[in-house]
C-alpha cells in the first residue's frame, strides 16, 4: 500500500471518529429530549413524588437540587476563592505550596462515592445529624472546592501583571490591591468557572446518596421557618435531589411509571445543566465586553 492511500484511509478513519463522537452526542440528546419532553408538564414539575403510585412529580426533588446547590456554593465560593487567592498571590514556591497542591489534587481526584463515604462518616454519623441537606452540601463542598480554587487561581494569574504593579506602586497594600484591582479583573473568569462548577454539582448523585439521603419529608412550602421540620428551608432535614431520584426510582423504586418519571427527570436535569453552561458563557462574555468596552 503506498503512502498516499494510507494517508487517505487514515483521514477517513479520523473523520469517522469525529462523526461517531458527534453521533453519540446527537443520539443521547435526541433520546433524552424526545423521551423526556413527553412527560414534562406543569403538573410534573409541581406535584410531589410518589413512592408507590404512578403519576408522581418531582417538585421536592427539583427544589432540593437547587437548595443544596445554593448551600454548597455558599460554602464553597468563599473558601475556594480564598484558597485560589492564596495560591496565586501569597503561596511562595516551596515545600508547603507543593503540599497544598498535592492536597488539591487529592481532593479533585477522589471518586465522588468516596467523598460520599467520608460525608457519611463525618457529617452523618460523627455529628449525629443523620441525613441532612447540610451534610450533603458539605460533601459536595469537598467535591467542588478544588474546581473553584483552580478557576480562581487561573483567573488571577491571567490578570495582567502591570495592573497589580500599578496599584502597588501607588502605595496600596497587597490585600487592598487584590480586593479592588485583581479580583474585579478576574471576576468574569471566576464567575464563569463557578457557574460551570454549579452545573457539575447539580448533576452529582453519588456523593449525596449517603449524606442527604434518598427521601424527603413532607414539605410545606408556606412554612418559611428554617427550623421547622416541614419547612423546605430547614438544612437539617433529609433531601433527595433530582439526580439521586433518577437513580433511586430505577434501582430501588416500586412505582409503575419508572420510565416516565426518570425520562422526565433526566430531561429536566440535562436542561438545567445546559442552562448553567449557556449562562456561564453568556455572563462571561457580557462582563468581559462591559469591562473592556470603550464608551
Amino acid at each position, binding site marked *: 500500500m503506498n503512502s498516499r492511500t494510507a494517508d487517505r484511509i487514515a483521514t477517513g478513519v479520523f473523520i469517522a471518529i469525529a462523526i461517531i463522537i458527534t453521533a453519540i452526542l446527537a443520539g443521547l440528546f435526541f433520546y433524552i429530549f424526545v423521551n423526556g419532553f413527553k412527560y414534562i408538564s406543569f403538573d410534573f414539575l409541581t406535584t410531589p413524588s410518589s413512592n408507590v403510585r404512578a403519576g408522581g412529580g418531582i417538585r421536592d426533588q427539583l427544589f432540593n437540587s437547587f437548595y443544596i446547590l445554593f448551600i454548597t456554593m455558599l460554602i464553597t465560593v468563599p473558601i475556594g476563592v480564598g484558597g485560589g487567592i492564596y495560591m496565586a498571590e501569597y503561596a*511562595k*514556591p516551596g515545600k508547603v505550596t507543593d503540599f497544598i497542591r498535592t492536597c488539591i489534587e487529592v481532593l479533585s481526584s477522589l471518586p465522588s462515592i468516596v467523598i460520599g463515604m467520608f460525608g457519611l462518616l463525618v457529617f452523618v454519623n460523627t455529628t449525629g445529624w443523620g441525613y441532612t441537606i447540610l451534610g450533603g452540601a458539605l460533601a459536595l463542598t469537598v467535591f467542588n472546592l478544588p474546581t473553584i480554587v483552580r478557576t480562581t487561581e487561573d483567573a488571577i494569574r491571567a490578570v*495582567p501583571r*502591570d*495592573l*497589580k*504593579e*500599578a*496599584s*502597588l*506602586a*501607588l*502605595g*496600596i*497594600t497587597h490585600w*487592598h490591591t487584590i480586593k*479592588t*484591582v485583581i479580583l*474585579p*479583573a478576574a471576576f468574569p473568569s471566576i464567575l464563569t468557572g463557578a457557574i460551570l462548577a454549579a452545573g457539575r454539582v447539580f448533576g452529582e448523585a453519588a456523593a449525596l446518596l449517603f449524606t442527604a439521603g434518598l427521601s424527603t419529608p413532607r414539605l410545606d412550602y408556606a412554612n418559611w421557618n428554617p427550623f421547622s421540620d416541614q419547612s423546605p428551608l430547614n438544612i437539617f432535614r433529609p433531601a433527595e435531589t433530582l439526580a439521586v431520584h433518577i437513580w433511586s426510582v430505577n434501582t430501588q423504586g416500586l412505582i409503575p411509571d419508572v420510565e416516565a418519571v426518570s425520562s422526565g427527570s433526566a430531561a429536566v436535569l440535562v436542561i438545567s445543566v445546559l442552562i448553567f453552561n449557556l449562562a456561564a458563557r453568556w455572563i462571561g462574555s457580557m462582563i468581559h465586553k462591559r*469591562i*473592556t*468596552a*470603550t*464608551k
Partner: protein
Amino acid sequence: MVTALKERTTMDVTAPSHHNDRLESILSVNNLQIFYGEKRAVNGISMEIEKNSVTALIGPSGCGKSTFLRSINRMNDLIPGSYAKGEIIYEGLNILAEDINVTALRKEIGMVFQKPNPFPKSIYENITHALKFAGIKKKSKLDEIVEESLRNAALWDEVKDRLHSSAYSLSGGQQQRLCIARTIAMKPNVILLDEPASALDPISNAKVEDLIVDLKKDYSIVIVTHNMQQASRISDKTAFFLNGDLIEYDRTEKIFTNPSVEKTEEYISGRFG
C-alpha cells in the same frame, strides 16, 4: 501621611513646594548591590540623587538601570528571589531595611511604568482609587484633586468632559499621562519613570517629555530611558550604567558633550548598545 494629604490641597499648587535653591540630595545610594537569586544585576553603585531635578539613567538593555530604579520604591520585592545589599537613604532612613513600611514608602516614591497601565475603571476612578485608600473620602476633595492632578499632567482639557468614561477609551499617550496624573495625585516626593515614553508615538512622546520638565519644580524625578536625545533634552544629571556598574554620573551637559570615560563616549555616540 493622611493628615499631610488632607492639608496639601490648600497649598498653592503653582509654587514649588521646596524652596531650597541649593542642590540638595533626596536619595543617597551607598554601595547598592541587587541580586536575582545567584545572579548579581547591580554591582555596588553609589550616587546622590538631587531634589527637584531630573536624573536620567541610561545604558544598554540589561545594564541594571531598571533594576536599580525598581529598587528605589521596593518594586523588586515582587520578584521572587531578588534581594538588595547596601543602602538607599531617604529622609534619613535606609529604605531597603526590613522595618520599612513599603506601602507608605510607595506613597512618597511613586512610579510610572513603561507601558501605560491604567486600571480598567473610569478616568476619574483611576485617580481616586489610591486616594480613597489613603483615607480621602469627601467627594468635593476628590473632585478637586482629580482636576488638579489632571491639569498638572496636561490632560485636563482633553478629558474634562468625559471623566467617567473608561480609561481604556484614551489613546496610549493620554493613558500614560493619566498614569502620571494618578501618581502625582498622591503628592509623592520622588517620581520614578521607567521608560515612560518608549511605547508612545512621537507627538505623545513630546507631550510626556514637556510634562516631565514641568513636574521638576514640584518633584524629584528619576527616569530610565533608552533614548539618548530624550535624556539630553529633559534631564539635569545623567548616569550611565553598563553591566551592573555605574560608569559615569555627571551633569547631563557634561555627559553628552565631554564625558570623562571612554565607554560613555562610545555609548552615547551610538557605537554600541
